[in-house]
Structure formats: structure tokens, C-alpha cells
């Protein structure tokens, strides 16, 4: 493949085919980033500055192959947005093991794997910004989301320790914790549950994609090089 080594900053968004991931991919395409997206399915994004990989974030070989191509073709990775995630609203007594494993694999192992491979590429230039995805379900101890919230609690711990381990390489690691946003992730959650959750926020409204983008923008800007290991929950949670 022809090398496209670039001076443009390169940003990788996981779970980029829909919801917040698609929004963020389009958001950064308008800001002169070269955007790489990945998801299990195809992407609706079409732009000469966009490249999509169909890869599962828990598939080590697939993820490594994607990073090898990013390294070879662009020679750099500046930002990783670890958005890919799954949820399943269920009482723990009714949660099948397979579902629990899938949530942990995608939300935590996927985050770990992408961080590890991204940091290897970022350390070449001694610069990197990693943004992981937490959730307000963790601090709010949301019933019905025990496994999901626990998987994101793992992401928070991981983010805080990864921030320390990667600081010497010029890489920051932070997390954003969205409130409910109208996406496929919460499509099976009863509206009254969502309403009760929103009531527990300081600012009582549903989150919007732009709220997430605002926090991610802050974390990844060059001036945020003294900000790492932080988790910002939306809505005043």
C-alpha cells in the first residue's frame, strides 16, 4: 500500500460506526484530523480523511494488524478515543455468564488492548492523548447495571494507573463518564428508569453528543499536557 505518512494529527475512534463514536469521528473530520475509525460493522462516514477498519476491539490479532497499518501508513497516532462499549440491563440474578463476559471483554479488555497498542505507537513521538469511556452508572451505583458499571469501574482504575505508567512517554490518559444519551446502548432501558437516573444528576437533562465531544476536546488539546488520570462525569454526577 502506498505510504501516506502525514503531518496531520491522526485520531482513532473505536465504535465509530454509530452513536457517540460516529459523532466524534465526524466531529474530528471537521477539525483537520486524519480520522481512523473501527467497529465490528461498516461505517457510514465517507471522507478522504477517514479510514475504517472492521475489527472487534477484543480481537488481539485484528487490533494489532490495524495498528501495524496505522504505523506503517501514517507513521503516527496522536489520539485514541476508546468509545466502543456494550451494555445489558439485567438484574444480576438473571444475567447469563456469557453476557457478563462479553461486557467485560468489550468494555475493559478492549480498552486495555487498544491502550496498549496505541501507547506503543504514540511513544515514538513522545506524545499521545488517550480518552477512555466511563459511565455515571458507576458512581450512581445503578441497579440493573451491575456488570456494566463494574466493567467501567475497571476502566476508571485502569485509566488512573495507566496515566501514571504512560506519563513518562508524554501520553495522557483520561476518561469521560457520560450520562444517558439517546443511543442504541440504552435502547432497551425502560424510559422511567432513565428518567429516575436523570433525576439524580445535578443538571437534570439527557446528555447530548456535543457534551461528550466538549470533554474529549478538552482532554486532547495540546494545552492539556498537565491533565492526566482524571475522570469527568457529565451532568454533575
Amino acid at each position, binding site marked *: 500500500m502506498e505510504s501516506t505518512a502525514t503531518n496531520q494529527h491522526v485520531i482513532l475512534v473505536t465504535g465509530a460506526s454509530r452513536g457517540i463514536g460516529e459523532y466524534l469521528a465526524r466531529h474530528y473530520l471537521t477539525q483537520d484530523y486524519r480520522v481512523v475509525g473501527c467497529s465490528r460493522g461498516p461505517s457510514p462516514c465517507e471522507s478522504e480523511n477517514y479510514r475504517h477498519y472492521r475489527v472487534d476491539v477484543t480481537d488481539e490479532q485484528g487490533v*494489532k*494488524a490495524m495498528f*501495524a497499518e496505522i504505523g506503517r501508513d501514517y507513521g503516527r497516532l496522536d489520539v485514541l478515543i476508546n468509545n466502543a462499549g456494550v451494555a445489558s440491563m439485567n438484574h444480576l440474578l438473571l444475567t447469563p455468564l456469557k453476557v457478563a463476559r462479553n461486557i467485560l471483554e468489550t468494555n475493559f479488555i478492549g480498552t486495555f488492548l487498544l491502550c496498549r497498542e496505541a501507547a*506503543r505507537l504514540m*511513544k515514538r513521538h513522545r506524545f499521545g492523548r488517550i480518552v477512555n469511556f466511563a459511565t455515571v452508572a458507576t458512581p450512581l451505583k445503578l441497579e440493573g447495571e451491575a456488570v456494566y458499571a463494574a466493567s467501567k469501574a475497571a476502566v476508571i482504575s485502569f485509566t488512573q494507573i495507566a496515566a501514571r505508567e504512560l506519563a*513518562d512517554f508524554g501520553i495522557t490518559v483520561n476518561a469521560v463518564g457520560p450520562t444517558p444519551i439517546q443511543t442504541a446502548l440504552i435502547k432497551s432501558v425502560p424510559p422511567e428508569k432513565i428518567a429516575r437516573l436523570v433525576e439524580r444528576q445535578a443538571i437534570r437533562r439527557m446528555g447530548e453528543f456535543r457534551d461528550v465531544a466538549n470533554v474529549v476536546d478538552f482532554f486532547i488539546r495540546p494545552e492539556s499536557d498537565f491533565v492526566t488520570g482524571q475522570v469527568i462525569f457529565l451532568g454533575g454526577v
Partner: protein
Amino acid sequence: MSSQERITQAIYRAVDELNKTFPKGVHLEKSPDAPLYGQASKLESIDLVNFIMEAEEQLNDEFGTSITVTEERALSQQNSPFRTLGTFTDYVSGLLKEHGINGD
């Protein structure tokens, strides 16, 4: 140049890269006996991480492979392959052999 020599040279290039990060007068010797960790080693843990990542990259560039040096078995071996440059070289030679690159 034999594969074994290419492996050694790739690892020594990683040592050169690591040495660039050290203050003047401090360096890791390019010798099989040079300790990578333990009391006799001059390396901090972050130096060892940097060295392993750099060596992995140099080896994969040299041989067109995508080996991962820090496989589970490397971390679980009773005698760690990361003790000295020599044990490290022996370990990656074995890994590369599994990828069809014979260092003998």
C-alpha cells in the same frame, strides 16, 4: 550475515537507542552478560520497558515479523529471559524460530 547475527545487531540497535536516553557516562554494555534487571543492572524499570519495546520494533523491522516479546510464557518462566542481554537474545531467537527464522 547469519540470522543470529542479525538478531544480535537488532538488539544492539535497541541498546543504542536506550543509551541515547541516559545521562553522559551511563550506558548499557553491548555484551551478553550485561544485566537488564536485578541489583547488578543500571536500568530503571521504565528503561527495561523502553528497551523491550525498542528491541521488539527493531526485530520486527529486521525480519518483517510481528512478534510480541512479552508473551505470557516469558513472564511465567522460572528463569526470566530478561535477566541479561544474552538470555534475552536466546529467548527472542527461540520466538523468531517459531516464525520460521532460524538463528542457528
